[in-house]
């Protein structure tokens, strides 16, 4: 008895002074919930088994008193193959040996375990039976349930180990430093049939294994490619109320998901409320150019700044998709269609429908587009320049809405708004612009099969917005695109 006590002392000293610091220094150990174990005088620890390191980690949870009183269950036939290891394991852990694969009908395989429990000792059981595949919990062996059902007074402590399967996997010899996470669950007291108990304990450990503390990101995630958000373009001449309508529309649509409004200013809505966002450099540049364009004295001076502003506005859509990932974009005027309409205005009525369609195709970067020798380039030299500079490939909107308003009314509204008038805000020019928009809308709707709606602009903005909203909902329900994860 004396030598036994000395052995226990040496064993505890080796565990506390050598093994425990070694494991902690080499591979970091993080224990969560160790309080669950501290108050218990008797216990059976059950844990998942992926590595030889498991038993070291579990013993590092124990107090000095419990080290001598705790016995892991180990397979004798496995360890008996290596005599030195066998002796070492027997001295350090005092395992209770069972023989795997040799069921003896006359002998109760659990007798050794029961003896120890009767004497008030504790057990460490790996109910999966053997080291399983890393990170997977295997079905528990039925022996655990039978044992527990006979000792209802001994609490079961489930422990989930994450990390040892990386430090020392089944086929490896050299342990590598990785953190190990030890999750100690609340003690379980089980009464019932052996089968139910096994099932319950397996569930408990399974729940523990799904704790977020130990979750690692999967190795290769398929990158979610963001579908560009569908764009709804609100078209109309100045004073037709398209800013107001598009703002209302964005606000309404944002109740179903984030909505971005690209107007003179960039706005972002969430649940009907405007939301401040990180500013974009391109947006600042566009704002500057836009303000410069509005100060133009004549149409000739207006052309280049306005064109630049529209091109920047188109590029902005890509930025908006990338940084904000909205669910839907509401455009106050589509850059492509605006350029087309302005081309009609500048060229008066000389453009026929066919040429206009070709011009839009060039702007949209359609493949195969019109050839370089096509008369459309002779008719619109600016288009040739744009094409040469590679500034085409503007985006076509998914839906188009035209706010139609007689030019007299539009002029009156612009006058009522006050402020300096832009050069094209005359009755005559607005009249031709309105015609231009109508033509562009008709041609685009026919050739590219884009749903289009013409709304009466004389009605109050709320009614116009409501009509637009119904149109958008009807047409976008099927192909709204992926819901944003942003």
């Amino acid at each position, binding site marked *: 008895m004396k030598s036994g006590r000395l052995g226990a002392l040496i064993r505890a000293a080796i565990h506390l002074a050598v093994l425990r610091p070694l494991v902690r220094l080499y591979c970091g150990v993080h224990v969560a919930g160790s309080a669950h174990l501290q108050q218990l005088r008797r216990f059976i620890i059950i844990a998942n088994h992926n590595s030889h390191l498991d038993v070291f980690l579990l013993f590092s949870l124990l107090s000095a008193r419990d080290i001598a009183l705790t016995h892991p269950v180990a397979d004798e036939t496995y360890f008996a193959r290596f005599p030195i290891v066998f002796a070492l394991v027997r001295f350090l852990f005092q395992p209770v040996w069972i023989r795997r694969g040799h069921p003896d009908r006359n002998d109760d395989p659990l007798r050794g375990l029961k003896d120890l429990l009767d004497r008030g000792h504790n057990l460490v059981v790996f109910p999966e039976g053997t080291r399983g595949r890393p990170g997977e919990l295997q079905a528990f062996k039925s022996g655990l349930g039978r044992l527990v059902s006979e000792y209802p007074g001994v609490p079961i402590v489930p422990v989930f180990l994450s*990390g040892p399967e990386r430090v020392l996997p089944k086929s490896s010899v*050299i342990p590598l430093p990785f*953190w190990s996470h030890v999750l100690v669950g609340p003690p379980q007291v089980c009464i019932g049939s052996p089968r139910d108990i096994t099932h319950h304990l397996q569930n408990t450990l399974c729940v523990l294994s799904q704790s977020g503390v130990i979750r690692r990101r*999967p*190795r*290769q995630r398929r990158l979610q490619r963001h579908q560009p958000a569908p764009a709804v373009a609100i078209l109309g001449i100045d004073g037709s109320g398209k800013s107001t309508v598009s703002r209302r529309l964005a606000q309404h649509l944002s109740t179903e998901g984030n909505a971005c409004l690209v107007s003179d200013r960039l706005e972002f809505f969430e649940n009907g409320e405007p939301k*401040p966002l990180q*500013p974009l450099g391109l947006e600042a540049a566009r704002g500057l150019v836009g303000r410069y364009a509005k100060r133009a004295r004549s149409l000739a001076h207006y052309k280049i700044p306005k064109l630049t502003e529209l091109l920047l506005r188109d590029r902005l859509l890509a930025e908006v998709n990338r940084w904000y990932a909205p669910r839907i974009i509401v455009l106050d005027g589509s850059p492509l269609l605006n350029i087309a309409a302005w081309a009609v205005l500048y060229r008066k009525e000389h453009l026929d429908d066919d040429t206009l369609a070709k011009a839009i195709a060039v702007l949209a970067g359609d493949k195969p587009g019109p050839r370089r020798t096509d008369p459309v380039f002779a008719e619109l030299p600016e288009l040739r320049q744009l094409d040469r500079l590679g500034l085409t490939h503007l985006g076509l909107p998914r839906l188009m809405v035209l706010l139609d308003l007689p030019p007299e009314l539009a002029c009156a509204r612009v006058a009522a708004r006050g402020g300096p008038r832009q050069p094209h805000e005359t009755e005559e020019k607005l009249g031709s612009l309105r015609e231009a928009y109508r033509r562009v809308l008709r041609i685009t709707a026919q050739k590219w099969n884009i749903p289009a709606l013409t709304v009466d602009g004389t009605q109050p903005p709320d009614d116009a917005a409501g009509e637009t909203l119904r149109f958008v909902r009807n047409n976008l329900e099927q192909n709204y695109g992926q819901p944003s994860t942003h």
Partner: protein
Amino acid sequence: MPLSMMIVLAIALGLSLVQGARIVLGRRWSFGSYLGFSWAFFVAFATAELWSLRAGNWVVAIISFLALREYFSMVEIRLQDRLGILGAYASIPFMFHFVTIQWYGMFIISIPVYSFLAIPLLVTLGGCEKEGTVFSIGVIDFGLFLFVYCMGHISYLMSYSIWMAAMLILNVAVCDAVSCLLQDQGKAVWARLARRYFLPLPVTVLLAVALSPWTTIPERHSAVLGALIPLLVVMGRHTGNYVEADLGVAEETVGPGRGQILDNLKSLLFVAPIVFHYIRYFLDLP
């Protein structure tokens, strides 16, 4: 007063302020298993000053090891990458040996040339599975570069002058303290970055210039370094935040073995190599 005492006092004072702010604010601090990175460097400096430079260098090597271990614990690896990871761990003594014998040429190429060639080979020797090779090599090399190579520069800086390294760590600690104290969740990214650069700027410039008699860096270069360090800290933290987010380290899950060291070292990622090379180039050091 002997130099060593002054170093100990100055660093202890500076770092106590930072850590005090952290504790008061309750930010990611728990005693025990937590490695307060600035304290760890302070230990390295004290060891180098009071005992020997070599020992101090090896303390930095241990910090590197802990950081690398934590990083590898968070990324997903294949069984056959173990050989490559063993190579990565072995690179730590390999590189730090050249730091301690102060062989600059070999120190500076050890990891970029030899380890970065050895690790792909080791990864491919570990098994026959070809899928995921690029990902594994990238993951291992990236961790080695950030947590060993960049940290090695601090170690080599110590061999020029411990004060230079102390100045670096103190200035970074100032920037970190400002970052910790600022509460600007709703602000735009650019505004946040600008505040994190300009607020600590006067302190870091003054500190660098005030320490110049000890660091032996001329005052104008000290002033430049004082202006450079907050910028590099901002860059390092910004990059580190993206890395953390991808590794799944969030404010609430950060813990031992779960991004705690990465969270603290991210400020140093850009600062350490660039400040080192600035000093080496302009002061014409060996």
